[in-house]
């Protein structure tokens, strides 16, 4: 069983990182950096203002970047009949989803945390704020990954599912954004703790919610 899950993880990672023909993990990353780069152009060269708002911008950019690969998470495998074949081999949808959440996080969480370094430079964040942003991303991106997979499963097979998915993720990600970006404003570790808590809740419910959605879509 473990061997099979590892095989699935390897396949998922190859699909999400290199992307097959749908574009890999580079696109969200470039998008993230582009937003961080555009923001100073839009608000002007006011260094204190940039430093004060920069952390929040990084968070919004991270959220938007996490939405980009939504349509590649569940739908292609549903169309291919992969989920049918796994079901016939006795692999539960919950296990498949858990593996996919891990793969999705690995393909965008750590790269995003790396990209946050140049982004912090572009926005003029100081070391302390950067530390809080990085810690917040470490705690928040697993939740974003889980949320992405859950919404992708719920909207798989619907017409315009990708656009609908993006719309659904944004309100559901508000708690992560409030606590994650909020930890910067009040400089509080409590905000980070709440970010982690929201992530844990999302990680816990996603396999079951997404698993049920996939079984239903298969019908």
């Amino acid at each position, binding site marked *: 069983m473990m061997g099979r899950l590892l*095989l699935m993880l390897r396949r998922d990672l190859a699909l999400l990182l290199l992307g*097959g023909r749908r574009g890999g993990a580079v696109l969200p990353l470039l998008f993230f950096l582009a937003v961080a780069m555009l923001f100073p152009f839009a608000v002007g060269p006011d260094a204190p203002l940039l430093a004060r708002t920069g952390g929040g911008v990084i968070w919004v950019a991270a959220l938007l970047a996490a939405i980009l690969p939504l349509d590649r998470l569940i739908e292609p495998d549903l*169309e*291919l*009949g992969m989920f*049918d074949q796994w*079901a*016939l*081999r006795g692999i539960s949808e919950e296990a498949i989803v858990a593996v996919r959440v891990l793969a999705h996080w690995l393909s965008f969480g750590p790269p995003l945390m790396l990209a946050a370094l140049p982004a912090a430079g572009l926005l003029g964040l100081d070391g302390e704020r950067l530390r809080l942003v990085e810690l917040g991303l470490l705690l928040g991106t697993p939740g974003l990954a889980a949320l992405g997979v859950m919404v992708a499963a719920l909207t798989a097979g619907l017409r315009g599912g990708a656009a609908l998915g993006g719309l659904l993720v944004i309100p559901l990600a508000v708690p992560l954004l409030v606590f994650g970006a909020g930890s910067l404003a009040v400089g509080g570790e409590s905000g980070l703790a709440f970010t982690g808590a929201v992530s844990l809740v999302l990680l816990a419910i996603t396999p079951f919610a997404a698993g049920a959605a996939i079984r239903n879509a*298969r019908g």
Partner: protein
Amino acid sequence: MQECRLAAFDLACRRGDRVLFRGLSLALGAGAALHITGANGIGKSSLIRILAGLAPAYAGSVTSEGGIGLVDERPALDPHLPLGRALDFWRAFDRAGTDATELLGLTNLLDVPVRYLSTGQRKRAALARLVAQAVPLWLLDEPLNGLDVSAVALVEELVAAHCAGGGIAVVASHQPIALPALVALDLAVLAP
């Protein structure tokens, strides 16, 4: 070949608000081959999915013993990968069975990406995946679609050998298929 059995009792299938068939009962033991026939939209594919346990029956029950393999219109092979590597994923996953790529004439297609394969080639690739799975219960949904004459004979041979080895094959197809000891089931008879 492991012990196998497939039985259904008083099955009914509903699509939307229409009942496609009802009162379907069958019992298949080792070596049995069943050909499900009927016009388009009569519920052949739905029956296959119900027998596979992938879709719920509107009424009735299905019991089966032994692993189930399914070939339908979706090959479940990554379209961007070369055929050999796409098949390798399932071979590593199933860790059993024989390599049928040569038998099915796929040897010189192994480094061609799956998305460039024709319908018939894809069908043969899916059958190679099924053989490598080494399960006794074969559920084949339109296995002859897109196949040329020689490939049809090949598939008939493959399924016949599977049944002769103690396996069960259920073939849903509007095309005739020649198999020894083939039992035909016309779904039109069971339409309400």
